[in-house]
């Protein structure tokens, strides 16, 4: 009885969560006639790939897609290298003046700034160094944006790793860097991968910085491209839905791969301090 009640409550939640996304997918596959039909056809319509062709071949969405991918991958790689090194340093070296804890907290706190607060000065800084409307500007900004997250996550993984293993490697005659490369990194590889995926998702989804820093077809990311279509007067619903549908594919793939780490990642190690 109670068990069935559970389903009665959960099923609507499920429908409510998924139906809107499904609806967007159908719009991207519908002819204009079906798009505006009333009552709205949820299931029965003649599918077409025309909007996908329009978006990615006729229009510049293909280019936005490439920009998004390049920016996300490059900035993630940079953040991982710089952030993992810092996390290792903070987790394994004893620094004076309680710097380990202080620096960790300071690094984390930079992640707490509202994006709009840094967006305004970053726009002006990028304008000053003539990097507006370049992929480089986004790569730089996303690297900095993801860095605190990488440090925080990897710090946790390093701290969980028994010290014995590195000590054994040193006694066995390996150098510190050798121990890092041959013993430590292989062991935190799953955590590193999870962290990378989070950074990719965040960079892929990011909107405000991209909106502020890139306004040309050559430099804008997929979200900015989609948003540009939405706020136009004459909206191409099919094209927009097609682009949006493509934008969610990598996210869904990654999210499924990552369920295990989701809570830890999303709550950012949760300010436990």
């Amino acid at each position, binding site marked *: 009885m109670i068990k069935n009640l559970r389903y009665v409550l959960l099923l609507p939640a499920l429908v409510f969560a998924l139906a809107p996304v499904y609806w967007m997918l159908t719009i991207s596959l519908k002819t204009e006639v079906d798009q505006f039909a009333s009552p709205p056809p949820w299931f029965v319509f003649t599918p077409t790939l025309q909007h996908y062709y329009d978006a990615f071949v006729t229009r510049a969405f293909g280019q936005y897609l490439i920009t998004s991918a390049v920016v996300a991958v490059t900035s993630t790689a940079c953040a991982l290298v710089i952030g993992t090194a810092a996390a290792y*340093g903070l987790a394994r070296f004893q620094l004076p003046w309680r710097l380990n804890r202080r620096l960790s907290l300071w690094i984390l706190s930079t992640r707490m700034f509202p994006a709009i607060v840094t967006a305004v000065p970053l*726009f002006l800084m990028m304008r000053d160094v003539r990097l507006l409307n370049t992929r480089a500007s986004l790569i730089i900004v996303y690297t900095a944006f993801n860095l605190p997250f990488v440090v925080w996550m990897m710090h946790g993984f390093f701290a969980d790793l028994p010290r014995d293993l590195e000590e054994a490697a040193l006694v066995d005659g390996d150098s510190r860097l050798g121990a890092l490369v041959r013993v430590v990194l292989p062991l935190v590889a799953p955590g590193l991968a999870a962290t990378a995926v989070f950074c990719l998702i965040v960079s892929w989804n990011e909107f405000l910085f991209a909106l502020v820093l890139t306004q040309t077809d050559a430099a804008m990311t997929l979200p900015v491209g989609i948003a540009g279509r939405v706020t136009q007067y004459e909206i191409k619903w099919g094209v927009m839905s097609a682009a949006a549908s493509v934008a969610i594919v990598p996210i869904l793939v990654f*999210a499924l791969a990552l369920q295990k780490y989701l809570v830890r990642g999303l709550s950012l190690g949760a300010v436990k301090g």
Partner: protein
Amino acid sequence: MPKSRRFFNAPRRRSKHELLLPALFIAPALLVLLALSIYPLIYSITISLQQETASGVKWGLGNFARLVSDNFFLTAMAHTFVYAAAALTCEFLLGLGLALLLNKQIRGRGLFRASLLVPMMLPTVVVGVVWRLMLNPNFGALNGTLKQFGINTESLTWTASPRLAMLSVIAVDVWQWTPFVFLVLLAGLQAIPQEPYEAALIDGSSRWQTFWHVTLPLLKPSILIVLLLRTMDLLRVFDQIFILTEGGPGFATETISLYIYRTAFRFFDFGYAAAMSFVLLALTNVISAIYIRFLQAKEAA
């Protein structure tokens, strides 16, 4: 063995160089953050203290003085608070409810969990697109479906209606972020050991009493953390509203981030935008400090 045992306590050839290696590891990250988080803040402070006037740049607190009498600013603040409070309440109650429902071994739990996660993983821009399609008064799925059930949808213009626009953007946030609240609380619930429940059962407490005296107190850290993170995000909301309404109709859904954006990138008044962004920064800092105080008090207790 004490936790504080540090691996690289180990000797080095020269103690002068003891800090060289850690510095090599940590410095790049610090430099990046100094250049791209701290320097922008300082930059922002300097421009917030400058006002462009006919006679050139004037230094002072003029931009901050303007805030007090700027109705757009005050309304945007009000919108931000309404938005944050309403969305936080709904997301928390719904998320807690879902977490309690799914904190049992039931068939299809994995499927439920995975599906509920979809909204929060989406790019906010896509969320905006999805809900523009759903809420469109003419061909949107929502009104179309309501019509099928014989409901008069003529006045339900959602994001285009000054009356319903705020409600709509709040609903969209609830749609997207309730899963996050749910996920964190579910993890919190699953971390609670079984013994307190068994003890409560033996003591003869009712379901409701058990929830109130066992579950809630033990879940409190998770609750505080999720409320903290959501509050921070809600106060700075930008993306979805920008796509859904651009702050409109009129200025009915203009929150503080949107107003800062409009000031900086439509009117190019960067000084004033910077001044406002400091108010937002101060606000989020104060609120997070309060939460963290609570959190630490709970841990100490």
